[in-house]
């Protein structure tokens, strides 16, 4: 059994607490021109309490901090909806090539053809994978892509003469969905789903004041929306558009193309499906694919191929504008490009097949021990509820106890429709042994909840720190270090 434990885990202060006047960790050449100063009234005093430390202290500081973390490189990371797959290291080598890492975004097109070609080709490849004829690599993250996609939808409707007022969103949707709709000036109407969204329910809510339906497919329960084709038809029948949150694309590559389902707009998460690292909270990238009708509204600029070369096209009057500076998170695009080129069609298909295999295997092993609220076929993730936990234990307790067993917990308490939801997404890069260890631990924990619930409620005990007082953090927010702060 994979019991979480540590070698020597060192304590470490804040970098500011290491500071000693005069210490420095940086070298600069001699100034080879006369020193110039700004007028006094524009010049600051020294940066108060900024760190003064040596290079070795910086290295030890962050090395120790890293040792308190857990990454995909440490172990199994079954966060549902996040696709924590292995991040290939060749992606990192690729992104660090000086010709890719150091090129300035305003380098003239004639001198950035290599970078532009990567952008052009990645757009095409994502288009082929999803079925969308036009793809933009502009957005910096999934939520950013959602905002972009919803703005495209609104711009389309405005051009038709009526922006419409409402957006339909199933109750299982990720929180960014309604937030993005609101930022486009829409009203959100929540639709109930029961495992899957029904075309009838959608049609009942659909009228000509509804601009769009936002769906996730597979949905956040890991189930393929069986009626998706009919749902799209029902929305289109009243002139609406369908937005798909493509976070769960890892289940469908080479299996099914979202554009073939009738979807009009979809965002990708390169940091999920396409193996770019999560970085402790970013950076990622959120490309958006659209139908031909919606292409004119995509952000500026778009890349075009002409006479064997690439150029930027800013002459697009219907574009929604831009949502960030420059062309996109190019460093992330390079990583995704590298990944897709290495896998090819067969590799991507195998990825989805093994992702779905791994998730169903977990489902089969855990179903006798955990309550499965929805019985339809799972794809790349499976959702259990807390119902079978005993001893007054809740999902949070089981999650913390999993940490003691050496695993990062799955996603918990999402989607909201399942009480104490436990959403498990293994991804395709896990071995069967790793998955078996995880299932063994989960089963043990279910048993512990009946035999000795305190083990769950007091968990985690094997970690450097125990459960944090979140109420204190929210009531008396302390969001920065200060010297001589009074306690």
């Amino acid at each position, binding site marked *: 059994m994979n019991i979480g434990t540590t070698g020597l885990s060192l304590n470490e202060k804040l970098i500011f607490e290491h500071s000693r006047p005069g210490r420095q960790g940086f070298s600069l050449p001699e100034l080879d021109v006369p020193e110039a100063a700004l007028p006094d009234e524009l010049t600051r005093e020294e940066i108060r309490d900024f760190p003064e430390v040596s290079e070795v202290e910086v290295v030890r500081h962050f090395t120790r901090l890293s040792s308190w973390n857990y990454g995909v490189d440490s172990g199994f990371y079954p966060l549902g909806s996040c696709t924590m797959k292995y991040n290939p290291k060749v992606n990192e080598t690729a992104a660090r090539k000086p010709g890719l890492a150091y090129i300035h975004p305003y380098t003239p097109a004639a001198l950035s053809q290599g970078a532009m070609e990567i952008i052009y080709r990645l757009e095409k490849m994502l288009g082929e994978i999803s079925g969308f004829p036009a793809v933009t690599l502009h957005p910096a993250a999934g939520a950013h892509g959602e905002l972009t996609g919803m703005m495209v939808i609104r711009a389309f409707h405005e051009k038709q003469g009526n922006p419409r007022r409402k957006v339909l969103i199933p109750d299982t949707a990720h929180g960014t969905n309604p937030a993005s709709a609101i930022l486009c000036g829409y009203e959100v109407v929540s639709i109930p789903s029961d495992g899957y969204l029904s075309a009838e329910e959608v049609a009942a809510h659909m009228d000509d004041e509804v601009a769009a339906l936002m769906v996730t497919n597979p949905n956040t329960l890991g189930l393929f929306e069986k009626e998706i084709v009919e749902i799209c038809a029902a929305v289109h029948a009243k002139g609406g558009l369908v937005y798909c949150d493509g976070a769960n694309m890892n289940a469908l590559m080479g299996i099914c193309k979202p554009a073939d389902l009738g979807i009009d707009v979809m965002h990708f998460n390169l940091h999920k499906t396409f193996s770019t690292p999560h970085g402790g909270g970013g950076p990622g990238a959120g490309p958006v694919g659209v139908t031909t009708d919606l292409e004119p509204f995509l952000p500026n600029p778009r890349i075009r191929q002409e006479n064997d070369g690439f150029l930027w096209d800013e002459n697009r009057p219907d574009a929604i504008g831009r949502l960030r500076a420059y062309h996109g998170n190019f460093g992330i695009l390079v990583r995704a490009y590298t990944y897709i080129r290495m896998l090819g069609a067969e590799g991507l298909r195998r990825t989805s097949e093994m992702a779905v295999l791994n998730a169903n295997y977990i489902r089969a092993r855990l179903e006798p021990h955990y309550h499965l609220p929805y019985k339809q076929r799972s794809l790349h993730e499976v959702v259990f509820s807390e119902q079978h936990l005993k001893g007054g234990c809740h999902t949070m307790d089981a999650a913390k106890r999993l940490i003691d067993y050496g695993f990062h917990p799955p996603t918990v*308490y999402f989607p909201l429709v399942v009480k104490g939801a436990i959403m498990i997404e293994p991804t395709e890069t896990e071995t069967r042994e790793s998955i078996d260890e995880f299932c063994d631990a989960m089963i043990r924990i279910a048993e512990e909840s009946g035999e000795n619930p305190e083990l769950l409620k007091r968990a985690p005990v094997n970690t450097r720190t125990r459960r944090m007082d*979140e*109420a204190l953090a*929210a*009531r008396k927010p302390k969001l920065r270090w200060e010297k001589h702060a009074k306690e």
Partner: protein
Amino acid sequence: MEIPEELRFTEDHEWVLVEEDVVTVGITDFAQESLGDIVFVELPNVGTKVEAGKAFGVVESVKAVSDVYAPVSGQIVEINEELPDAPEVINTSPYEDGWMVKIKLEDSSELDELMDADAYQEFLENEE
């Protein structure tokens, strides 16, 4: 689950204490337990006009946020100044020290819409 006899209740889990034409409002024991440790309370200013069924304030816990709805229409005549600095009082004493606002009633017939303690008890049982 505490449900004081002398109070009235709404379906959004607010309680109401009626004293002639001024009512005191807070959230119930059920509400504070569902929310968990309360970390922040947003109250309207004294003098604000409120409408029955419309939100007048917000209660936040670590993991959830909830609007608080006015049970009756009228004007805010007093707010609990202690709450912003000690929101946890709503958890420890939801019906007394955790009171939120006092509203001067416009239309006393609105009180008839509220549930009494027994009806609220039944309502909670049906919700489960």
